[in-house]
């Protein structure tokens, strides 16, 4: 786990602790994954720092890869979600299309982030 400033957050990172506002109202639950919109929402609530899951490396940087949403993760979650309906070929088709879309979503926001 590591504390990161709001500007260092990237979509795909997973919260190690839940985030509360000054009135102690819960904004985001522990284990929620960050999206562009959620980072923006935290900013508007005036949050400066949050705890992110990650593995600190020897050179002082942190390896988030282990906790980022990965392709394999997406597949596993989709399979679980579609478990009861895959005997329907249309649902099978929707699941495959969704998998491709979710992977696209995963790479797109990161690209944008790198350029800023």
């Amino acid at each position, binding site marked *: 786990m590591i504390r990161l400033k709001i500007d260092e957050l990237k979509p795909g990172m997973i919260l190690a602790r839940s985030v509360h506002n000054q009135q102690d*109202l819960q*904004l985001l639950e522990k284990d929620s994954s960050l999206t562009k919109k959620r980072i923006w929402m935290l900013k508007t609530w005036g949050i400066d720092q949050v705890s992110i899951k990650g593995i600190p490396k020897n050179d002082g940087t942190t390896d988030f890869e282990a906790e980022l949403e990965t392709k394999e993760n997406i597949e596993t979650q989709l399979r679980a979600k579609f478990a009861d309906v895959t005997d329907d070929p249309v*649902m099978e*088709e929707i699941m495959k299309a969704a998998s491709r879309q979710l992977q696209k979503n995963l790479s797109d926001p990161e690209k944008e982030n790198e350029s800023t």
Partner: protein
Amino acid sequence: MNPPDLDRILSRVDDLPTLPRTVLRITELVNDPKSSARDLARVITDDQVLAARLLKLVNSSFYGFPQRISTITGAIVLLGFDAIRNLLLTTSVFDLFSNRRKTSLIRQEQFWDHSLGCAVGAKVIGNYLRYGKVEELFVSGLLHDIGKIVEMIFLPQAFKEINDLVKDQNILMIAAEEKILGYSHPQIGNLLAERWNLPPKLISVISHHHQPSEAGRFVLEAAIVHLADILCRSIDIGYGGDNKMPALDKTAWDNLRIKPRAIESMLAEISKEFEDISLFITYSP
């Protein structure tokens, strides 16, 4: 006969969230063939907040008009009466969502996102099918799960039990509702929609979005929202209350005549449009 809890809700029907007076007045005007754009503009401009919102909405990228629209009358002439009514209905329902603080903020935000995602999804599917009034589909998508909001407000204990059951057994929310309440959110939504005097098409979609083939003359609209719900859940837009996929209604799917290979481009479009509109109509409790 209604189950006891549903009767209890019925008996407290006066406490159910009501639509703002202005929106009701606008609904009346829209249904009155003798009313003019000027009558409608007068009612809207009386409510500053509503007027400002309307202008913000019509000038958003969602509508994509090339020039800036600066007057309410201009907006009415461009969009038409029905579209205006639907827009205002949308923003009012949005208020309803944001005034409740009984669950965690993130839960409310995700729930709102699910509704907004379905609204965008229904619009995208409608465009693909060249359906004439896509803004009606948008509102239908936005309101399809309104029954869950009523549960959250009026049956907080049962609502908690339903959510616990969903978590424990990893089942659909509608299945948990049946087990705990003996009825489910489409029935509750139907109650509220009737109470609000919503148009029959909207009532039908709210009541039948899980079994669209039973929606009678509005089977097409119900099928569109049914599919939009499934598509949004598949790409994790918001949270519909559980982590399962509802079964696709076979008759409804056949009715839609959508080519399976069109699904991927629909998902891409929903994803993009949702991103655009959700930054604009953001959930701000």
